[in-house]
């Protein structure tokens, strides 16, 4: 099921571990990206083959971690931290504002497939709260105005987002 390019990446990832099962998390990340951001039973079975583990094991692992999704996400995935440090600085206000502006509840994807909002736990940038991740990019010290500006750009499709590249995807230089 992996594309030829994905297959190559998968092989590179596998080569970095003593046993294939160890590569399960990075391979799941890879599979999720090949399938436009979410995993299906077929992909779980494929990953099971690649990592030589039972499919139940893969499902057990995939459902343990919050970053693996089983439904399509919007083109823009807004993850807003409302944990305590961000909360003290207004994280919840930012979340509420984004929900209102996009007319979309956290935990959902808009029908046009443009946006998903997720209320998330601490993102490890607490001193710079409130924090929001758009796809992979961190946005810090957010105000309502700054957030609006980001969403403006997203709505107009003028914002350039870095492509999500996980370290193991890259061919090793050595």
């Amino acid at each position, binding site marked *: 099921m992996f594309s030829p390019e994905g297959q190559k990446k998968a092989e590179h990832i596998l080569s970095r571990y003593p046993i294939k099962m160890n590569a399960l998390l990075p391979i799941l990340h890879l599979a999720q990206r090949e399938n436009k951001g979410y995993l299906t*039973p077929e992909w*779980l079975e494929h990953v099971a083959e690649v990592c030589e583990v*039972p*499919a*139940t*094991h893969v*499902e*057990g692992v995939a*459902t*343990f971690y919050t970053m693996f999704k089983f439904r399509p996400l919007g083109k823009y995935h807004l993850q807003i931290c409302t944990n305590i440090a961000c909360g003290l600085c207004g994280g919840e206000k930012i979340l509420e504002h984004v929900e209102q502006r996009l007319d979309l509840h956290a935990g959902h994807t808009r029908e046009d497939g443009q946006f998903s909002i997720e209320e998330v736990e601490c993102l490890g940038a607490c001193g710079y709260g409130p924090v929001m991740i758009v796809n992979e990019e961190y946005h810090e010290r957010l105000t309502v105005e700054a957030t609006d500006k980001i969403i403006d750009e997203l709505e107009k499709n003028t914002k350039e987002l870095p492509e999500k590249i996980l370290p193991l995807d890259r061919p090793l230089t050595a």
Partner: protein
Amino acid sequence: MPTFYLDDQAIEFEPGEKIIAAAKRAGIDIPHYCYHPALSVVATCRMCLVDIVDMGNGRPAPKLMTSCSTDAAEGMKILSQNEKVVEGRELVMEFLLVNHPLDCPICDQAGECTLQDFSFEYGSGNSEMEYSKRVYGWRDIGTFVTLERNRCIHCTRCDRFTREITGTNEFGVFNRGHQLTVDTFTDQPMTNKFQGNMADICPVGCITEREFRFKKRAWKLKKTNSICNRCSTGCNITVEEDKNKVFRFKPRENQEVNQWWMCDDGRISYRDYGKNKNRFLQPMGRVKGNLVKASWDQIFEALKSRIADLSPNPNEVVALSDNFASNEELFLLKKMLADVFDSDKIFFPLRAWSQHETAYPIDSLITTDKSPNRAGAIALGLLGDEDDAKLKEALSETVKIAFILGNPFNEDNEILELLAKAELIVYIGTENNHWTEKADVLLPGQTHVEKEGTFTNKNSRVQRSNIAVKAPKETKPEWMILTELIQFMGKDADFHTSRAVFEAIGASNDHFKGMTFDSVGDLGSLLTSI
């Protein structure tokens, strides 16, 4: 052996043994859910907490420890009943019950549920939790078991069972935290051949046997130790019955044979002991072509005079047994042939067989040898071979009298046709079949759960099965029928119990030398010589 102290009782342990296991050997049960001696230790239910006041080095453990995961150590002093421990257990119980439906009145596990037991002992009975409980749907996950996940206490025994015991991995733990759940891969059904065991090891009524669903309250069942007779492994079981009706078979622990397990085929063989319309319950003899009911005395008299009329030569008498006869029955059948007819033509279907072997020991329960007493038949000197050449040779000569025990060789028409030519056919069995048409005399025997006897399994282990239900009035156990037949024919056979028959085997057969019912006991013992 090194020793530790549990509530002041000295307990010896093997180095490396966990506290809970050593205590169990000494007869003390520390409450637990996730621990199972067959499975890896996860120490997650936290029920088995104990207070280690001295770790063996004079120092106490910093907090309560789980006895399922803590190695016993020389001189350790452990308290399992003090306030701290009881409080800890009450707390764990309270947490376990927070989301438990407590629907014991409609739960099949009730009566054998450790959650119910411990909640009685340690729980306050009513939960202070005032929020709605977690709800999952009921799921049918296999041919054999059902999953009522609202009752799950997340001990993961089921998950570890399909990972570690069967290696089939159909089961998994999904999600995390409060959403944690057990299920099969994207809702596929279970496939392993040992699913019933998952119902056994699930400590609550989450996984239950579909067969048993809503049929009976478990505490009403009377249990009798027995063995499964569906293959030559001879898994140790209990036959569980109420009002003379068998409701289920459950495996009984025997580390030398089946450990804690049995296969699903064996487990559902309990069905064979329900109401059977086909059963014949009275001796019958053929008069002018028709079968006529008779008393035991009448039928033995008639048989005796018919045999006298035929006055067969030794090689004109044969006896055939099916796979299911016990050592005692085979011994007596052989004895009758020898003492009464001077014949040694007694045959048993000794088939080629193979053992299923994988990296998972449980698979070795399954064998292609469906004969529970094959090794016994060999030890007792019965005749037979893979393609029944010897039997066919014997049948090619004139056969005047044939004794049929059970339903042997019924898959081979050639044999059946040859046999049908005998002038006198005596059929000892329990149900009507093709022999009913062919036989001149029908003697009603008893089923596996109605009589006692010993069987020799594939590893030459002699094991006992016991009387679990009362047999119908006019029937007799086969060993008794054969004993009386020998007596009627004027020969010596002074056996009043199957126990006595087995002792006679022990006295006369080197393989069984010195063995008695008592020496075989509940867990069986190996043939003296193989």
